[in-house]
């Protein structure tokens, strides 16, 4: 393995490239026309244009990716997460082209690729699963009947889904039809597969997932769990390791169940087994993600590993770099996700130019970012801009470091959820570890979060900066990046003020 093509964009493409470079491997970035000057392109040692902005015409185009690999002499492909990372056909095409696929075997992806199929396998392997109906087909009436059998509240979920797309919570029967139709539409648009199914909605459950890793020599280990309960509309906002809710016995049992799940499909590489944990400490298999996870850094910091480096090693055929006994947790890590979205307007996506972007730098703070100052944020792709991860000797220590770092993060020009993240981290219920998947709905009314009005300090700074002429320089510089065409007007798309809200 000498040259790795990274079939992705954003922070994960940057993360993978850095891991490759640290091993002396070259990297090939691929990019759409919208990403010609994106950070992941600037990080790689080669770059290939693969199509126009829509993902379906670029990052999801198998032919274009294989052609890019051929043209640049890449001998391996890392899929990142999202896009084609869990597409068994793509994995098979990569292998058939004589390239190394940095991920699990296509058969394992396929086995876990639909939630329905994965559930059946796990039931067979004795892993507990959430009550649900998966064989009702896609007819709305049949799905409604299935929901009646399980009893409300229920979840409508895309079989091929992830990241909250194609997923709806339904409390009342009369809302079910609309939810099913919307989920099917979203699933079709996002995954090219409209199949949805119905599942029991657990009340105030925790979302806990276990990192697993396998190799081609029969090795399989788990690397503790991640607590991902803090979600908004099924999109993860904050993750931590270890979970504040698990005791040693539950942790051991869930780890063993996760390894059993991995072994059931001869899993090779990094994967994640997601569970729901209810208030009684019962846990249910939710799904298995056959790829690296967005929130993998919290595991890396607590377990002392480099999961991407291990992916590369295992893909080269090397055995796992660690035994289960060697994998001992240390301290606590918390990750938050910075999204280009406006919490004051129902978390609608925001766009614009990052007039200033300076991540915090401090001991115990890690920044995995997909953007840099001067970049344009568009609506073409996922709105996640970056992740900030804090490690501490204890959970309180990590929270203290994270809270301080969040306050120093300079993100100007694009509205983000930064203030919301600060409010979550400062919340007494979060500090107490009382996290569950309804945390945000319970503590942040209506899913809307209004920023506090400007304090004296901010107004004083504005007044003096203007009087000094300090900000004129900044405006000039903002324009200079792209020919000084004064596009800063574009950074403020939310011109229609008032009470616009998403249906969150």
């Amino acid at each position, binding site marked *: 393995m000498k040259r790795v093509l990274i079939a992705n964009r954003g922070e994960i493409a940057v993360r993978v490239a850095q891991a490759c470079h640290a091993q002396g491997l070259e990297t090939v970035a691929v990019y759409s026309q919208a990403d010609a000057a994106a950070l992941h392109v600037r990080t790689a040692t080669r770059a290939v244009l693969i199509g126009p902005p829509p993902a379906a015409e670029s990052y999801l185009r198998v032919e274009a990716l294989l052609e890019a690999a051929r043209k640049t002499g890449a001998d391996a492909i890392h899929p990142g997460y999202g896009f084609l990372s869990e597409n068994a056909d793509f994995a098979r095409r990569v292998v058939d082209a004589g390239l190394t696929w940095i991920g699990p075997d296509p058969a394992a992806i396929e086995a876990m690729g639909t939630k329905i199929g994965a559930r059946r396998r796990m039931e067979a392997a004795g892993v507990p699963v959430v009550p649900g109906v998966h064989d009702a087909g896609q007819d709305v009436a049949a799905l409604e009947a299935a929901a009646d059998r399980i009893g409300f509240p229920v979840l409508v979920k895309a079989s091929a889904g992830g990241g909250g797309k194609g997923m709806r919570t339904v409390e009342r029967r009369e809302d079910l039809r609309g939810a099913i139709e919307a989920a099917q539409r979203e699933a079709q648009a996002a995954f090219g597969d409209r199949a949805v199914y119905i599942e029991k909605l657990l009340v105030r459950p925790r979302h806990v997932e276990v990192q697993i890793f396998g190799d081609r020599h029969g090795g399989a280990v788990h690397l503790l769990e991640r607590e991902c309960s803090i979600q908004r509309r099924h999109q993860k906002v904050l993750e931590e390791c270890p979970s504040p809710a698990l005791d040693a016995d539950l942790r051991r049992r869930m780890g063993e169940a996760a390894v059993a799940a991995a072994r059931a499909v001869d899993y090779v590489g990094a994967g994640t087994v997601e569970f729901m944990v209810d208030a009684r400490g019962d846990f249910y298999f939710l799904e298995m993600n056959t790829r690296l996870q967005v929130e993998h850094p919290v595991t890396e910091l607590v377990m002392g590993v480099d999961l991407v480096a291990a992916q590369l090693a295992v893909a080269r055929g090397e055995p796992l770099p660690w035994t289960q006994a060697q994998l001992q947790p240390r301290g606590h890590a918390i990750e938050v996700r910075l999204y280009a979205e406006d919490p004051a307007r129902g978390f609608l996506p925001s766009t614009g130019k990052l007039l*200033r972007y300076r991540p915090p730098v401090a001991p115990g703070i890690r920044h995995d970012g997909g953007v840099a100052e001067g970049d344009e944020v568009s609506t073409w792709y996922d709105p996640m801009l970056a992740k900030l991860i804090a490690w501490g000797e204890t959970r309180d220590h990590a929270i203290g470091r994270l809270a301080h770092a969040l306050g120093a993060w*300079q993100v100007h020009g694009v509205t983000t959820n930064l203030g919301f993240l600060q409010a979550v981290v400062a919340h007494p219920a979060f500090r107490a570890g009382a996290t569950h998947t309804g945390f945000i709905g319970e503590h942040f009314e209506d899913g809307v979060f209004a920023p506090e009005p400007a304090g004296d300090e901010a107004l004083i700074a504005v007044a*003096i*900066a*203007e009087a000094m002429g300090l900000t004129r320089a*900044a405006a000039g510089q903002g324009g200079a990046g792209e020919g000084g065409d004064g596009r800063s*007007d574009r950074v403020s*798309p939310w011109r229609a*003020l008032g009470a616009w809200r998403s249906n969150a």
Partner: protein
Amino acid sequence: MSRLVQRGETSVALGARPDPKAPDTWIVTIGEHHHTVQARRTGEGTLLVTLADGRTAELAVTRDAQRWWVTGGGRTTVVAEAEAAGRAHAHEGGLEAPMPGKVLAVKVAPGDRVAAGATLLIVEAMKMEHAIKAPHAGVVREVAAREGDMVSPGTPLVTLDREEDA
């Protein structure tokens, strides 16, 4: 020089002038209040400010079209020019597309009476569906968007008269 900026729901006059008697010292006016502070440039776009009570903070200030972004003292704040905010309010009756996207469904027609929070349209952006809801009760005067339309920020979608006006 003084300008009007938004502070919460109201606007306030904001100005600063150097203190001729002391170096690096500024007299800042926020509405009726005067603050004497020490300030000096540090890096590009950053300012080290010492308040009268001795607290000090470095603040990064970025000028945007009609607003400033300020990070310092543990938070990021957006300060808007009052004039700009006023301009935006003038648009209140007309709902514009908030983001680039595609209209998936139009749920209302001209003449419809809607409650505050009623879904008017569904727009898809960033692979998610977003419901555009009525900011207040009212009567739909005009619907400018059709299903399948690609819209960008500022595209007029619906004109909604306030219930009390209607």
